[in-house]
């Protein structure tokens, strides 16, 4: 796919990376690169192989085959070099629940070999950045989910890593905390840190400069959000509100030029090719199918639409 480039502006270069468990291929011959300073989204359904990919890139898991260069270090030859240059937030919270916020920071700072004074100073910075000031002395296990995730991020960046790997950093976090968290991620990226992030929230994926989409261990799509939408969900999307819409979807799908008609939120989304079809024909078909249309307006395709389209195609291709 991508040329095995080791250009200086590539933070991560992945070449034919695979991880098998017996006959099962959790990650199957994946190749891509991540540019320096970008927020790179790594999406996929449950079990698609996202965490497995991250764990290989962090030097936690041996690839079955293939290799990768992370921050200029080969994961096969120089895992220690990789570890010095990256920060990692695992999917499962993995700081010491029985220690205080400060004690966790002190431990991980020490584990990265940061001397006492610089560490003190850095901890001040992190505490300010992540808004943890009032929780310093609190036992980690007693913190709410959102605060814990901020602490985990803080611990992962104590040593000013070039690259941050964040595996579902906002899973199970309330919407306000999620927004704050992403504000932080964008700020870090703005300051030059490369962020490699997985998420299940498609609204978050919109923040990514580029997105790789995994289906069953394969990388099936890679582009910026706009490009993904253009390629995978072309045409015009009409958001229709009313009653009895879902029952009328099969009728709408019969219309020539209609590429997809799916329930979406309280209404339905119908996507069609503007060359062969128009709004009136779509709405007519829905009424014909027994629906009472209360309103309709064109909307931007979402990454959710992309995701559904790609996963559906991935399943067919299987």
């Amino acid at each position, binding site marked *: 796919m991508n040329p095995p480039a080791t250009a200086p502006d590539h933070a991560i270069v992945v070449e034919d990376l695979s991880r098998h468990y017996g006959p099962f291929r959790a990650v199957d011959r994946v190749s891509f690169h991540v540019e320096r300073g970008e927020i790179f989204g790594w999406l996929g359904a449950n079990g698609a192989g996202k965490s497995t990919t991250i764990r290989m890139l*962090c*030097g*936690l898991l041996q690839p079955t085959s293939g290799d990768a260069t992370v921050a200029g270090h080969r994961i096969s030859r120089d895992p*220690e070099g990789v*570890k*010095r240059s*990256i*920060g*990692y937030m*695992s999917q*499962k*919270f*993995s*700081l*010491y*629940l*029985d*220690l205080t916020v400060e*004690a966790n920071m*002190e*431990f*991980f*700072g*020490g*584990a*990265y*070999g*940061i*001397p*006492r004074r610089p560490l003190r100073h850095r901890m001040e910075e992190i505490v300010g950045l992540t808004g943890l000031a009032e929780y310093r002395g609190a036992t980690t296990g007693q913190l709410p989910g959102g605060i814990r995730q901020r602490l985990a991020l803080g*611990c992962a960046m104590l040593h000013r890593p070039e690259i941050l790997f964040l595996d579902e950093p906002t899973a199970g976090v309330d919407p306000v905390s999620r927004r704050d968290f992403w504000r932080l991620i964008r700020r870090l990226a703005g300051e030059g840190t490369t962020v490699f992030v997985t998420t299940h929230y498609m609204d978050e994926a919109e923040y990514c400069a580029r997105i790789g989409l995994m289906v069953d261990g394969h990388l099936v799509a890679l582009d910026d959000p706009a490009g993904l939408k253009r390629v995978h969900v072309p045409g015009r999307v009409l958001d229709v509100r009313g009653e009895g819409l879902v029952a009328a979807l099969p009728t709408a799908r019969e219309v020539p030029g209609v590429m997809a008609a799916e329930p979406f939120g309280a209404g339905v989304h119908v996507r069609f090719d503007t060359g062969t079809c128009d709004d009136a024909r779509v709405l007519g078909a829905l009424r014909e199918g027994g629906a009472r249309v209360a309103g309709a307006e064109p909307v931007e395709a979402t990454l959710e639409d992309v995701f559904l389209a790609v996963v559906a195609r991935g399943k067919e291709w299987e």
Partner: protein
Amino acid sequence: MDTRMLWIQLVAVMVKEVRQTVRDKRVMFLLLVMPLVQLIVFSYAVNFEVDDVPTVVVDRDDSAASRRYVAGLLADGTLTEVARAGDEGEAERMVEADVAKAAIIIPRGLSRDLARGRPAQLQVVMDGTDPTRAGVAAGAVSRYFGEVALDLALERLRIRDAALGTTTRVPGVRMEPRIAYNPRLITAVYMVPGIAAMLVLMITTIVTAMGLAREREMGTLEQVLVTPIRPAVLMVGKLAPYVVVGLLDVALAVTVGAWVFEMPIRGDLTFLFGATALYLMSTLGIGLFISTASTSQQQAFMGGFLFILPAVLLSGNMTPIHSMPDWLQPVTWLNPLRWYIEIVRGNLLRGAGAADLWPQLVILAVMGMGILVVASMRFRKRVV
């Protein structure tokens, strides 16, 4: 990687380990209160002091002299008469039926034989299921009759001297069986070294066994492993605090032993702590080994327990090694506990040092090194 960085990492691991331990009330209890309680309970409960052995008496001689002997035998309280029997057979049946633990059989003509200086035979039947007790009881009997025989011999000499008008100088020898090093046979004094060794084993082995398993179970190991910390640094940092705990526990045992049980401290304590450090290599190594073989804390705890139980039973502390079956005795060679107990006893009770105890020291050092090397190799593999 420069040494400064290694040092920072090592200190970070040790500090973290201590913080976690101090914050864990159960572990603190295990480390500090349990040893005290066990030390005191064990020392009192495992009572090796032999007293009141129920005894059946068969007096076939039935003379004034034999009655005096029986009374004398029972006088010191080691043996207590619980029954009389007419003959040997009856007495043995009573021992078998557990009415008595010992039988003293005084044959017909004993007093006459003793008076004439002829060899006299006296039979003592013991219930051997409790070797320590049996040994002490038999000792009490022979000691008493030894004294009786000596008295009689001296008396006859005096009579002869008086008759012949001579003076025979008898060297002032008097057989006085003395139990060396623990004259009053105070069990606690004998037990404290063993209990100290046991405590150190239990605490250091189980806590280290569970340490790595806990990190794996909680997922924290994964976060540690993305740091550039080396397995060796992680391992040393995790073990070092427990070396201190082990030494403290030994100090605690020695203090309690000396204070509460009047245990003598005849040896050099620096030597004792050095030997303890050697012993800790084995106990920590075994703990580490178990932790590399377990995926959960529960497994690690069970593993620790499965090692500790036979180690304690085969240490020679509860059952003397020479009373174990022949095939089992060589197994105790592999038991670090055995060698350490020998060192502690030798050092505290006899004042022995390296000149005396070097074989035990060498065995402990070799064993400890071996276990630690194997365990750390496994640790490296499991961790990377």
